[in-house]
């Protein structure tokens, strides 16, 4: 699936929910589904620090595609991290670099990307694109 197709799939999933509580319950479920990050990647050097919660990110190239491993110490952040990995992992560098990530706003979770939240998500998205760029040449 393309990035855009995955984003649309996610937006459809979230459209089923009437209120914030259902959305967050779903995010909590998603956070549990995210495969546990290998301890060899859960290091300080892979840490994207936010004021409020931490995000770990590691990327590698496999068969021409970028694979992301990610984690967070806060569950809601982890749920959003799970969505980001679902959208961007396994895609090509070009696709990742050129993508517009609009699904987060579309599912009503834009507040988690705001500067004041400082939960590492904004920085993480930037970092995911940096990785894609850096691994492009390899």
């Amino acid at each position, binding site marked *: 699936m393309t990035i855009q197709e995955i984003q649309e799939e996610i937006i459809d999933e979230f459209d089923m929910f009437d209120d*914030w*509580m259902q959305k*967050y*319950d779903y995010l*909590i479920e998603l956070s549990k589904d995210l495969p546990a990050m290998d301890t060899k990647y859960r290091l300080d050097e892979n840490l994207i620090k936010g*004021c*409020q*919660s*931490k995000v770990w990110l590691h990327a590698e190239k496999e068969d021409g595609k970028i694979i992301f491993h990610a984690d967070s*110490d*806060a*569950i*809601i*952040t982890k749920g959003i991290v799970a969505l980001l990995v679902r959208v961007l992992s396994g895609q090509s560098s070009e696709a990742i670099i050129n993508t517009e990530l609009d699904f987060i706003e579309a599912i009503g979770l834009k507040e*988690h990307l705001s500067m004041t939240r*400082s*939960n590492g998500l904004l920085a993480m998205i930037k970092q995911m694109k940096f990785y894609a760029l850096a691994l492009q040449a390899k």
Partner: protein
Amino acid sequence: MAINIPHIRAQFPALHQEVNNKPLVYFDNGATSQKPQIVIDAINNYYAKENSNIHRGVHFLSQQATDKYENSREAVRRFINAKRTKEIIFTRGTTESINLVASCLSRSILKKGDEIIVSAIEHHSNIVPWQMACEQTGAKLKVIPVLDSGELDMAAYEDLLNNKTAIVAVNHISNALGTINPIKKMIAMAKKYNALTLIDGAQAIPHAKVNVQDLDCDFYCFSAHKMYGPTGVGVLFGKEDILNEIPPYHGGGEMIKEVKFEGSTYNELPFKFEGGTPNIAGVIGLEAAIRFMEEIGVDNIAAHEDELLQYATSKLIELGGIKFYGQAKEKAGLVSFLIEGVHPYDAGTVLDKLGIAIRTGHHCAQPVMDRFGIPGTMRASFAVYNTKEEVDTFIEGLKRVKLMFS
């Protein structure tokens, strides 16, 4: 004297709004307080009818604005029982006040090998300026450790003090833990070594009566916005002798006597430290905030907040699964805690959906969080307008949080 809370709440327009379709429960007063109508009106009125630059005009508006500005200075002097109005400097806030002292001391009294003592529970604004001062002068920073209770280790403080101690800078009440530090005693101990003392009173000024003559500190700093006043204005109290000894902070208009290219001379106190056009509206707003607090009575405010703190603490204990941070015998104004197994960011996000505003994170006190090995805490901080009913709503919210994240 029991205070009339509904009557007080009615004076705060911001409290009567809905957030996420729920009535706002504002428990983030440690970050900033809401403003009573009297303060809002004072600022609006200034801009609508009284606006004029101060200290420099011969016309009516200028004189009127100057009078109001200087009246505010006298109100502050009286509020903290300073001896003279020239010891009251208006700044942008506590952070600027501390930076002013650190910078001016760096350019005069501080020298290489001097020691500056701060505590392990300081806000970043009472750490970083001193780190910068040490970088600039070659002085060394020493830290009073904190005990598990959130109280400072006074024995360790005693050990840290020596003839090299130039400055002791500590907070009056900790914004992260609520600890009321025994500052009068700490100031007396510092004096034995002729060290200067600076007190960060940002968190204390809304919760306790401050008497700088009784404390005998050299400097006391606070912000208007935490005590029902506007943002962008704060106070530095400094003893006259020391303020006269140190050089000015910002150069420019107002703080000079004579300007010639060969050299300029500086104005006398307090204007020496008030360069440029100040936040005149803010200073006038501060005076209204002082009147607001004095009318209710600072002791009455403190008693009400103490009652809330006891109530909230007991309800949290009853809820179960709560770990408290900061359980000093003497505490004020706030409760800092974690729900076992729940990240504060998750809890804060859900509480927000329920209209409840608390602060989560490190509260600009990262060293405190490192000391206790946690990413941050949940902090509910109270003001005079908060109620037990709001605490009940808060507890219900926490039950919801526990359910969602268990």
